[in-house]
């Protein structure tokens, strides 16, 4: 196998590589997604309030979610790269103060985790998928939050600490086949300007460049102005190319955690030493070195909790659509008529997102610890270490679920657009063809979903065993330490198969 950098770097591919190297590549993608977001908001607020006939009911919940998982599978964090919320945020950076540091107490994934849980609950409690109006308001709230937060705080505080969608991508892109990283570590070793994190500042008029003051070397660029008291770099004055706003220093960056694929580091590096490199999707989750801007994942309870919520959330989200679980919810509501349905749902969510995962992970970690090392490792440390092996199973469930909707209803966008244009007095695409729907025959759906779950399980087993080898060293001990985690991954996969086999009921709208 040829593993030369030329073969493995997407930036060196003809066509797409050239596009990605273009300085305005990200902006052009963002403009497209901002246009789509605008259509969603307009149709959601002013269009017909039947979700399947509205762009706000169709584009985000059927198409966007399908594209998201496909992009993560085939490439990486494409959504954050093309994020529509970033364009207004740039304005807020320009006109707002954007000079405050994000509060130290909130520098973790906990705020995002709470927002993520709230979103999962609101999705079910308010049937967001069935309300174009609420969907439009979710998008508007997102724009407002990104605008206000990043207008006040330095860097990409919103992306790193708050954005629930971003966290979904940060964790699940750990199994993506592409990663933004340095091409040659030795080049970074000799670098003195650190533009990839600091950004590049305009050349000083009098520099060590040539007679005209034109900089020739990386060291010719003026370093960022520094705060006299702290000595830290500050301000955007003279900045001609930003560095990483999520505090990921390229030479020490590991994997896709917290990487928005903004490509700033690629444009900032004066040595052209950062690329988008292909890799094995099994590689990142088994690594545990110190990650720039993050730390060691196995020592980060907030990251472990995030991974847990996203793994178990995949199953919880799908559970809300099958008849037996909806029947259970109905029974709970009839048994507790004095409680509002939203409160009962919150109780079920606490059970499914917190109590059950905590119980299962603790039991598995305890068994793993007892079998391998006689219980020497703390339970929490073992959970934080091994929970990453479950990410492929969780991502497989998200993929199976979202692809189901995408494959069943991918073509429904055609009549929705026809109707939208017709309502605007532009009937050039003809009358809506409401018969358009599936992208593949119905009989293909279950085999496709089953295959995805099986691949997810296989990945989880391989990652789990690699983590165990890393932790235990000895092959035999590694096998015993891995065994309970392998069983848990298998149980989750079987839960996924059971879910796929259940009669689906898309409801929750009428009460």
């Amino acid at each position, binding site marked *: 196998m040829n593993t030369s950098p030329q073969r493995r770097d997407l930036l060196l591919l003809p066509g797409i590589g050239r596009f990605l190297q273009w300085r305005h590549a990200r902006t052009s993608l963002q403009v497209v997604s901002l246009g789509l977001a605008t259509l969603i908001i307009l149709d959601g607020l002013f269009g017909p309030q039947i979700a399947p006939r509205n762009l706000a009911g169709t584009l985000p919940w059927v198409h966007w979610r399908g594209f998201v998982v496909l992009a993560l599978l085939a490439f990486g964090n494409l959504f954050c790269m093309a994020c529509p919320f970033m364009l207004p945020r740039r304005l807020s950076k320009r006109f707002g103060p954007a000079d405050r540091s994000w509060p130290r107490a909130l520098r973790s994934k906990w705020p995002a985790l709470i927002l993520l849980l709230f979103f999962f609950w609101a999705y079910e409690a308010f049937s967001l998928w069935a309300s174009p109006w609420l969907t439009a308001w979710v998008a508007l709230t997102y724009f407002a939050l990104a605008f206000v937060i990043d207008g006040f705080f330095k860097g990409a505080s919103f992306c790193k600490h708050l954005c629930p969608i971003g966290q979904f991508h940060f964790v699940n892109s750990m199994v993506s086949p592409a990663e933004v990283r340095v091409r040659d570590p030795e080049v970074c070793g000799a670098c003195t300007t650190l533009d990839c994190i600091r950004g590049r500042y305009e050349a000083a008029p009098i520099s060590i460049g040539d007679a005209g003051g034109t900089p020739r070397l990386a060291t010719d660029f003026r370093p960022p102005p520094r705060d006299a008291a702290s000595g830290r770099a500050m301000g955007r004055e003279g900045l001609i190319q930003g560095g990483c706003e999520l505090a990921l220093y390229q030479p020490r960056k590991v994997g896709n955690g917290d990487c928005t694929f903004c490509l700033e580091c690629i444009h900032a590096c004066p040595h052209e030493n950062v690329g988008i490199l292909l890799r094995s999707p099994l590689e990142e989750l088994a690594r545990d070195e110190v990650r720039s801007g993050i730390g060691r994942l196995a020592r980060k309870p907030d990251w472990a909790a995030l991974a847990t919520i996203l793994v178990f959330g995949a199953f919880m989200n799908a559970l809300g659509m099958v008849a037996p679980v909806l029947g259970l919810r109905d029974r709970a509501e009839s048994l507790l008529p004095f409680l509002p349905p939203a409160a009962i749902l919150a109780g079920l969510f606490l059970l499914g997102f917190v109590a059950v995962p905590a119980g299962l992970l603790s039991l598995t970690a305890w068994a793993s610890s007892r079998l391998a090392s006689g219980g020497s490792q703390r339970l929490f440390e073992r959970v934080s270490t091994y929970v990453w092996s479950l990410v492929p199973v969780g991502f497989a469930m998200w993929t199976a679920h979202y692809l189901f909707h995408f494959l069943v209803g991918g073509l429904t966008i055609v009549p929705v657009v026809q109707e939208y244009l017709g309502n605007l007095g532009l009937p050039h695409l003809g009358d809506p063809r409401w018969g358009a729907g599936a992208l593949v025959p119905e009989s293909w759906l279950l085999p496709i979903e089953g295959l995805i779950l099986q691949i997810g399980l296989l990945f989880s087993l391989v990652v789990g065993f690699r983590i165990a080898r890393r932790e235990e060293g000895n092959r035999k001990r590694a096998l015993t330490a891995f065994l309970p985690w392998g069983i848990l991954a298998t149980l989750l996969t079987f839960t996924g198969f059971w879910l796929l086999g259940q*009669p689906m009921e898309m409801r929750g709208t009428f009460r």
Partner: protein
Amino acid sequence: MRHSVRRSDLPTWAPGVIVALALAALLTGCRGEGTEDDLPHRVQVSTAPTPPIVGPVRMLVTILDEEGAAVSGAVVTVEGTMTHAGMVPVLEAAEEREDGHYLISSFEFAMGGDWILTVRAELPDGRELRRERQVRVVGDRP
């Protein structure tokens, strides 16, 4: 001592935030118009079995005028749409069986869950009637 807020005391971003909040307050009042007509007629929709199940269902539509008399001679269609996007709608024409009673012998509900039935009728006098009904479809395909 009298304190007043001078314009220069306000942060530069404050006007933008105020405009945005005002815009948001206005937008909360916006919502797409309902699609039902304002005719005085009443429309009754019944299914057999009741509640409807996944699969073929008999559906009877009755149109009554403002005096409660059945309206015959209308052209009636029913469109079923799930509340979740991505499902193909079901569109069926009804046949008039007796005065004012229109029958669809097989209306195929493709999935369990919440459906919106949109009844459209072209009345004999040319007026168009459009009503929506919510139904919950239960059970699996037999």
